[in-house]
């Protein structure tokens, strides 16, 4: 019953958050997910994700806020012209775009190779427990 419950909820487009039915059913359902959560594959996936996402997020937030803060704190520095009339403030702002593109590209590349492979391994394990739901 547990597995059927999961598929139906999603497949029908009915209320997505499967609402709590009988509590016994829920517990079996919950413990299955918990089991999957503790598999080596899933732990590896999470470790790999966070290893990328955490430093990348800290970096982009720091890089992003450096721009308005420097503009406010050190306006003379930011107004310094480096190439003709182009100043540091404009080049910094422009570099934010390339920073965002490069980080996005790195993430997508990592996800398409590493994360997807690990997620697939978890899904295969889960597939045995849930019969279907491979995607």
């Amino acid at each position, binding site marked *: 019953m547990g597995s059927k419950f999961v598929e139906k909820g999603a497949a029908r487009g009915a209320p997505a958050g499967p609402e709590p039915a009988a509590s016994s059913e829920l517990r079996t359902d919950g413990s299955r997910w918990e089991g999957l959560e503790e598999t080596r594959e899933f732990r590896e996936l999470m470790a790999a994700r966070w290893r990328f996402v955490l430093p990348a997020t800290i970096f982009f937030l720091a890089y992003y806020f450096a721009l308005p803060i420097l*503009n*406010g704190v050190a306006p003379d520095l930011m107004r310094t012209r480096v190439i003709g009339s182009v100043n540091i403030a404009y080049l910094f702002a422009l570099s934010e775009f390339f920073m965002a593109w490069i980080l996005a590209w790195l993430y997508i590349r990592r996800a398409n190779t590493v994360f997807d492979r690990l997620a697939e391994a978890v899904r295969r394990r889960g597939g045995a427990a849930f019969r279907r739901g491979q995607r």
Partner: protein
Amino acid sequence: MNLTLVLFLIVVAITLGITGWAARRARTTVQFWAAGRSIKGWQNGLAIAGDYMSAASFLGIAGLIAFNGYDGFMYSVGWLVAYLLVLFVIAEPMRNTGNFTMADVLAYRMRPAPVRSAAAVATIAISASYMMAQMVGAGSLIKILIPGLDAALKPFFAWSLFGVKLDPSITMVGLLMMIYVIVGGMVATTWVQIVKAVMLMTGAVILTLMVLIFFSFNLGAFFDSVAGVKDKATGLPFTDPGILYQYGKTRVWGADKALLENVSLGMALILGTAGLPHILMRFFTVPDGKAARNSVGWAMGLIGTFYIMTTFLGFGAAVLVGKANICAKVVNGKCASAPNNNLSVPRLADFLGNHFFGTIGGEFLLAFIAAVAFATILAVVAGLTLAASGAFSHDFYVNVIRTHLFHGKVSEREQVLVARITAALVGVLAIFLASATGASTNAAALVAGLAFVVASSAALPVILFTLFWKRFNTWGAVAGLLGGTIATIVCYILGPGFSVNPPKNPIFPLANVGIVTIPFGFICAIVFTYLGELVSVDRLAEQKFHEIDVRANTGLGAEGSATAMAGGE
């Protein structure tokens, strides 16, 4: 016949054609809300770009740069970098665990009735302020660019409703968006957004190229002439920061006010995008998490390219047209009305067309850019209508009232019917409110100052905690959603607000309230999670965390595209 009017009608004809084609693909709930989950990654990338880049981006940012130089560019930077957060922690988990709306993800772990109701409140607050800004903008734009149309429609609007006279231009935009959504659902909305994204990119590329050709592709000369434009009040050249945010002038809370405003704005821009319901909704239209991720990549490429071009459009208008010549009424090459920065891009188009191809060229390019702006607004308001009606009908009516209160089952047919009815109600309400507020609204400020702040103060903390914090519970979710929304609205009303003529000494000193309300939203969610535990332990929320954790990260059990599903059943 007026050339602008012809191009407007072509845009209307194309979008209505799409809607007619999509009508047969909007019958089931998964078709109506999620386009059958069959939108390809790159298509969704275009649609996200079309959903996201509003009139505030196209006309608003370029206008800010044209009038205030460099500082306007800060919006462009924030609105692109924001997508990194969407890519890293939002897009795939959303697709893997959600169904049609943001609240679906929350209701996974939490008690559905309270979180869905609270999420509906936040969603409607975000969509309503966003939509108002777009519609008011559309109204004034149409009046200026095709005065004939507004005048011709006027006799049909000679009556008033509850003392409010409906605005013909706003009503027209409202009716079109209602038709797209009601008849064609998400399929029509998606394709209208894709068409708009292509038009917008084309328009921006053409204008940027023409600016560059004007300067014979000599970027040095271009920036030299931008630096030659000086701001009257501060004396700074337009390439320098400090014109819009006058640093070191006033102090608030022991810090530089301009710096606080700028950082506060940045927080809302960068965190708000990940909580916008109409953007989150787009991730439910693709087949799987991988497509959701790739669509963000496509969107970032387009959005970033566009936002870099805003400097060429804005600086170009500052140099070639000049602040003094950007207004609604130009008589003999001189301004006969007050300067209006939203018209910088149209005036730039007029100038460039004239310069390269003579009077007819100017008229044509102006008409084309006006049509692009019109399509831009239509695509965004359609996405917003869909998100708001999702909150009303899917979250509130179907899942709270019918399923929870009356324990009823709601058939597919009824769900789609209710979705259509709520879309109509949302549309009528938006037309009414936008007509009532009228031109006293500063559109770009309203979007960035209110919609993005509610999204980052109310929606984002709750989404993040639902996905990543095991201990998070229903109490915290409801408190975060309502606390963030209410705090934003209160600070906003007490602050300088969105009026064109702000009050002198508002109680809340900053126009950008995010620096206070975003931490407040997060704190509300955390504090009430612990307080709630004292009242009653939300065991379900903790148990379900294991499920959402596995699902969000692996896509296990997520529903595939509609076609794949039909084969599987």
